[in-house]
């Protein structure tokens, strides 16, 4: 495939073309982006466990969103669509990573929540980060969409291509797994991060 490089003039033209190519104006995009970029980034970072990858996937998510030809009924619809794109991108990453995945043995898993005196927010987040790393990628997605984004079971099922009945069982298992990894003191919401 031949490489293309755009001249300065072409770059300027790209800006004008974008208004025609994309499904929203730049102004509307700015507003929408301000509302959604951080939650999307957090979702990508938490589900991939890689902040740099989250940066790349964020750009890709919005690019695909802008190129979409879907007629959106509301901002909620847009937001769900955006999360669906992000979920698909994350799933592609899992598939790619599966080929060269390195299995961690039990000895590699750090013990979490062992010291009750470490109760500040930062440490809570580190615990959560480590705990999420021990879950399966799909479990991370499920938990994040359900309990950080507040999507309904039906919405999550449609995003992940699952039946609602299966989703409830998977969500239950993911929840129990997270709590067991974090330790019982999180069960009562003792650490509120």
């Amino acid at each position: 495939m031949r490489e293309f490089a755009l001249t300065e003039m072409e770059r300027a033209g790209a800006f004008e073309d974008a208004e025609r190519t994309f499904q929203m104006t730049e102004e509307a995009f700015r507003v929408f982006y301000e509302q959604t970029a951080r939650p999307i980034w957090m979702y990508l970072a938490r589900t991939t466990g890689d902040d740099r990858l989250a940066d790349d996937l964020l750009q890709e998510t919005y690019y695909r969103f802008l190129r979409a030809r879907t007629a959106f009924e509301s901002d909620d619809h847009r937001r769900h669509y955006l999360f669906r794109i992000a979920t698909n991108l994350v799933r592609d990453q899992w598939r790619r990573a599966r080929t060269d995945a390195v299995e961690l043995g039990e000895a590699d898993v750090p013990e979490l929540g062992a010291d009750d005196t470490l109760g500040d927010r930062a440490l809570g987040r580190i615990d959560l980060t480590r705990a999420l790393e021990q879950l399966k990628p799909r479990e991370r997605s499920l938990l994040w969409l359900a309990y950080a984004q507040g999507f309904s079971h039906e919405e999550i099922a449609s995003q992940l291509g699952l039946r609602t009945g299966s989703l409830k069982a998977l969500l239950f298992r993911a929840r129990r797994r997270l709590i067991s990894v974090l330790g019982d003191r999180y069960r009562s919401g003792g650490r509120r991060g």
Partner: protein
Amino acid sequence: MADHSCVHEHDVVAAVLSHRWDRASDELTQHAADCEVCRDVVAVARLLSADQEHARYEVHVPAAGQVWWRAAVRARLEAAHAVARPLTWLHGIAGACAVGVACAMIGMAWPSLRELASWFTFEALGADARMADVAAFVTAAMQRSLPLAFVVAACLVLAPVALYFVLTDD
């Protein structure tokens, strides 16, 4: 399935995510205290929503204009690729056609060349026996070298095409 989810789960999550859990109805909080599913849901939702909240203040995402700009440039590049793709195919097809035509022409002209060589051997150089031997050898060699001639012709046509693609890649 009843063990896996609870009908109040969505209300519980909504209350936690909207920071209304501490002010939620007694009925709901009492239910959460008694229901194992909702108790877990409260714990997990509190943790994850707190983590999500942290993003509002500490996570730095690229500016909207930057994301828009990159997307616009990429859309333009992809459009340029899309336009160039048929041209690339066209170049390939033209090259293949040129090779085919060259081969066909050589094939058609070959009997005439052979006759010309024979005439040259026996008519023009007929007087000199030694030259006639040389000419007969050349004629025989030409008759046997038809595949080689095809290959040479193909190279002559393909070399500039290949050179074109190599140089345009740079």
